[in-house]
């Protein structure tokens, strides 16, 4: 939707041991700042996972927290890989469904990349096509 104009400021993939596998910023900010934001969000993720309790928990964790003028959303897979997305807090509040569908599509791309025999699980993601697809996905929203 044109009104949003690339809300996504950063997309990150964090492995099961909380090691960063992939982080891509879409603005001119230094990446270190996004590393910091994503790192802080991991605590909130652990909190949410521990508190999800009984009942069918979903992979989408929703809004994790807000910092400065950014909003952070999270998603965790069954293999304990986390997807973190940082968005700029603008007037047009992004709908939960859109973020959920973005995470689903990101999961599909991630699963495809994971099955690539040249990728060793646990290593940082160096696949160029993964980076390109994520960039396209992010800009399409």
């Amino acid at each position, binding site marked *: 939707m044109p009104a949003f104009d690339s809300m996504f400021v950063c997309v990150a993939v964090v492995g*099961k041991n909380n090691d960063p596998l992939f982080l891509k910023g879409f603005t001119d900010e230094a990446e270190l700042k996004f590393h910091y934001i994503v790192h802080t969000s991991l605590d909130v993720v652990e909190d949410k996972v521990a508190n*999800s309790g*009984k009942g*069918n*928990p*979903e*992979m989408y964790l929703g809004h994790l927290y807000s910092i400065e003028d950014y909003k952070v959303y999270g998603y*965790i*897979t*069954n*293999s*304990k890989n986390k997807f973190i997305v940082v968005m700029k807090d603008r007037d047009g509040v992004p709908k939960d469904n859109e973020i959920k569908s973005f995470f689903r599509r990101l*999961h*599909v791309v*991630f*699963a495809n990349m*994971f*099955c690539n*025999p040249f990728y060793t*699980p646990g290593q940082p993601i160096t696949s160029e096509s993964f980076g390109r697809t994520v960039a396209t996905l992010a800009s399409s929203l």
Partner: protein
Amino acid sequence: MAKESRSREVAESLFDLFHTEVVNTITESTPNQDKEKIYWRLEQLGFRVGHSLAERYTKDTARYQSSLEVVKFLCKEFWVGIYKKQVDNLRTNHKGVFVLQDNKFRLFCNISNSQQYADQIHLYTAYSCGLIRGALANLGYIGTVSAEVPAMPACVFKIHVQT
């Protein structure tokens, strides 16, 4: 105008043949025909594949909270995705030991039922054990998997999950 199907299909028998050949090749290429090494190499193959398949097949399921749920997923979605059928019987002692019984194991369907080669069938279960171990590992449960063949074409997998 007929719409061409976008999904490409492959004959299932190809995997049976490929698997048999993989076992043969690894048997021949391992120095001294060391049975343990052969088993280990095949199991490692299965491990990486199981790892990836678990990632793919859990995409659309809910999050699993316990080892029992994960093993149930293995028996249903995972087994169906790979072998086109569910595991026939699942038993557990609720202390981390699970026994999966498949009465008509797909990889044995095209192998003769006679007892003549019963002692060599063990190598043909290595890859499948690796599959299970890889899937479990990706979902967060370290364990060991062993297989027994009581009678062809049935196969029994025993999983020990570390708690």
